[in-house]
């Protein structure tokens, strides 16, 4: 049966790429994309763009008109930027999710796929080397973005409880890198020097942009209940990543990291959030068995993702 898919955050990288991928899928009848900004690229024929703000209750009308079978919530914003203060980021992530899920109270909806982030696990010195999906419940929430993510995931979990017929998938993505993606993380890896933290060499587990889209598409095709970590197979230390990229590191002592690094990276149009210094000290590794065995996605490794 051909299915209708609704994608939020259509204008961002994942929205545009996923819409293009699903437009080629014979199992998908139509794709409706919602965003408050118009997508930059031209959309394929089977994709319709609807302008709408997730934070407003109008979103319910859009969802009701689209009658989707699968809802892909892809409007997660991780870094504050131009016109998006950290206050607005919180509203987009938390209130947006709440409004969207309230609008998904329709009989047609069979699956909800949410692009979340592995940042929910945080980065701390005593952390497990490989987070499994069940550990998000026991991690202390230290930063604002972590708390937002936990709130978002909590809404999805309670939606799943109230709608047992709907399969809800939470994809927890590790930092995504790639040649076309524009995020503070990819810009830092393209900068002539990498601002590292003095005396620390974190284990990073990155994800290639194509693999992140493949994971989203796989979750749309075969919905899986619960959270799934999405990352390359094995963590690699930052020093090895920088050797691979032939990029020098600029070591900055941890207490002044944001004070020193933020003015520097602002030249590249990047603002770092408060999660970043601890991520660059302790890194984060996740277990990807659910992704490879149950979702059937085999992403490339961290070093191959940066090639």
């Amino acid at each position, binding site marked *: 049966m051909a299915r209708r898919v609704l994608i939020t955050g259509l204008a961002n990288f994942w929205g545009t790429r996923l819409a293009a991928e699903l437009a080629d899928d014979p199992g998908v009848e139509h794709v409706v994309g919602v965003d408050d900004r118009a997508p930059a690229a031209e959309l394929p024929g089977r994709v319709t763009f609807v302008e709408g703000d997730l934070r407003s209750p109008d979103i319910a009308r859009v969802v009701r008109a689209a009658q989707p079978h699968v809802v892909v919530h892809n409007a997660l914003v991780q870094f504050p930027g131009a016109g998006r203060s950290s206050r607005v980021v919180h509203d987009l992530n938390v209130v947006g999710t709440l409004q969207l899920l309230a609008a998904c109270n329709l009989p047609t909806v069979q699956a909800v796929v949410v692009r979340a982030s592995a940042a929910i696990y945080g980065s701390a*010195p*005593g*952390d497990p*080397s*490989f987070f499994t999906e069940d550990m998000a419940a026991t991690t202390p929430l230290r930063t604002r973005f972590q708390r937002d993510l936990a709130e978002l995931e909590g809404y999805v979990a309670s939606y799943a409880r109230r709608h047992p017929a709907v399969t809800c998938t939470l994809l927890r993505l590790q930092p995504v890198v790639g040649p076309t993606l524009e995020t503070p993380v990819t810009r830092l890896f393209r900068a002539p020097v990498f601002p590292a933290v003095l005396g620390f060499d974190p*284990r990073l587990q990155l994800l290639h942009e194509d693999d992140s889209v493949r994971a989203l598409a796989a979750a749309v095709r075969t919905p899986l209940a619960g959270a799934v970590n999405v990352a390359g197979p*094995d963590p690699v230390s930052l020093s090895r990543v920088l050797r691979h990229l032939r990029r020098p590191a600029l070591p900055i002592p941890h207490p002044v990291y944001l004070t020193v690094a933020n003015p520097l990276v602002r030249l590249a149009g990047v603002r770092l959030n408060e999660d970043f210094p601890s991520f660059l*000290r302790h890194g984060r590794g996740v277990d990807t068995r659910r992704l490879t065995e149950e979702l059937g996605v085999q992403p490339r490794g961290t070093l191959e993702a940066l090639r």
Partner: protein
Amino acid sequence: MAEDRWGRDPTLARAVDPALAAAARWWRLHVEGAECVPREGGVLVVANGGGPWPWTPLLVARALPRPARLLAGERAFAVPFVAVAARRLGAVPAHPANAERLLGEGEAAITFIPPAREGPYNVGRFDEAHLAARAGVPVVPCAVVGAEETGRLPWPVRWRIEFGDAIDVRPYGPGQATDRAALLEAAETVRDSIQAMVHDNLVRREGALF
């Protein structure tokens, strides 16, 4: 050069080995019972801690006949440079999930019992028996003598490291891994055996210095 997925870099271990060998000679280190450690499969080595960091963990790891990972406290990973060295030498944060994963993957893990408050060489409580029980791996008790006298300055005291016979905690798990009384009994067996070996080695050392 290549690190494994846990972050251990074997080249660093090889680079510091001459320094550890010199330390072992300086302290007249005597190792016994290395044949008690199973060569294959998961095993949890439990030793009495104490004394100045980082000699005890490094010397125990070196005395083992196979590569092992150290379950290290969170503080080791919070200090600049120490964090990098610890990870590259094979330490992992002592999170129960890490211990379970390592033992399940058939690796050897070393953990230390903090010393009790009453005087030197009193082995404190061992509360990680459930990890070995749940993974279904044996526990190898290990006694370290010499670390307590070494103090802040590396006095040339005599050191002894002895590994005891493997203790099978499997009768206490995995089905019984939640049974508190059985686990306490298993932990007490391990602690008693380490304490007995510590006392035995203190006697057999015949004096700390001369």
